[in-house]
């Protein structure tokens, strides 16, 4: 049994996660998966992913792995189990979380002295670089890629590693995953922690700005962009998450790739209570 972003998972697919005890919220089994009848979307031409629905089951289909997703069960058909495990940890799990009515944000959270900062943004915007800069200064990892929250808006810990592109992985020790990134294991925070601030990398932003009201909520809603309609009230859940978090946590917009460790620490210190 493993715990993945707050849900206990019993998996026939090997997962690079610590063991835990308890009852399973989600079973991951290996088996045949048929495509859904109702195609919801597909990507292309270079990245081939199809999303379809069969009854209440969401089917996500990569060339080497297919997943049938229901709230309590994920069936995996894979020619490459390692790649399937890699997909399960992030892309598939955000859909599972949505199916449980728990939307997530696309970002990374790091913690020091019981207080965390969330760094959000699209892939390539500088999240991992900024988080790594803090981890190198003694901060601890809470979650990478997927931020999910408990009822009091504390961040729920994720897998204890950060995935680094090869050019950022120089001189770091870890293991390369099936997606070609290095799993780097920094010091990890095992506890749920409150956020002192959220920083969002926003394209076109030319300076650091504190976001309030609808602007803050809209930016968080953009970061919950789950393209898979896994739950009938998904938009409502994302709406509630964004407004809960924006009402409690200061949100800043910054230009992509602009964050330094010193600036991040300054923002956190300004907002620590």
């Amino acid at each position, binding site marked *: 049994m493993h715990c993945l972003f707050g849900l206990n998972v019993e998996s026939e697919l090997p997962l690079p996660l610590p063991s835990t005890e308890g009852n399973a919220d989600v079973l991951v089994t290996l088996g045949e998966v048929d495509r859904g009848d109702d195609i919801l979307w597909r990507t292309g031409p270079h990245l081939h992913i199809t999303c379809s629905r069969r009854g209440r089951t969401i089917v996500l289909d990569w060339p080497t792995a297919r997943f049938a997703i229901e709230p309590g069960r994920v069936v995996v058909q894979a020619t490459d189990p390692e790649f399937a495990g890699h997909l399960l940890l992030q892309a598939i799990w955000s859909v599972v979380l949505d199916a449980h009515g728990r939307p997530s944000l696309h970002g990374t959270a790091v913690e020091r002295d019981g207080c965390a900062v969330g760094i959000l943004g699209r892939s390539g915007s500088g999240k991992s670089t900024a988080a790594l800069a803090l981890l190198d200064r003694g901060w601890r990892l809470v979650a990478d890629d997927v931020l999910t929250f408990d009822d009091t808006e504390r961040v729920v810990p994720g897998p204890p590693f950060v995935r680094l592109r090869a050019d950022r992985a120089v001189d770091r020790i870890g293991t390369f995953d099936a997606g070609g990134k290095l799993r780097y294991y920094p010091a990890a925070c095992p506890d749920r922690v409150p956020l002192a601030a959220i920083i969002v990398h926003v394209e076109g932003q030319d300076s650091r700005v504190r976001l*309030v009201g609808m602007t*803050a909520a809209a930016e968080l809603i953009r970061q919950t962009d789950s393209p898979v309609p896994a739950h009938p009230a998904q938009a409502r859940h994302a709406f509630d998450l964004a407004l809960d978090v924006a*009402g409690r946590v200061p949100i800043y917009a910054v230009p992509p790739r602009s964050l330094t460790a010193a600036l991040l620490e300054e923002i956190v210190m300004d907002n620590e209570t």
Partner: protein
Amino acid sequence: MSFRVPTHVHHRALHDEAVLLDARSDAYLGLNQTGALAWEILAAGGSPDSAVDALVTAFDVDRERARTDVAVLIETLLARGLLEPTRT
């Protein structure tokens, strides 16, 4: 005349503003401080005149300007299906 919020509309106050979600289309609408105050009154079943009174009191605007703002807001909300008249 009074209004109510349709069941497909979810709304929350945030930092003196209001954010509305149309669950049919997943579209969002943000209202600024004055719009949020008028929305709060209209959404609770208050009349347009009550909303005008509240704007005049809270923001020191002249009544005619407040009346126009409330009328435009109501027209926008009705057109987007975010508010509907109460049938009496």
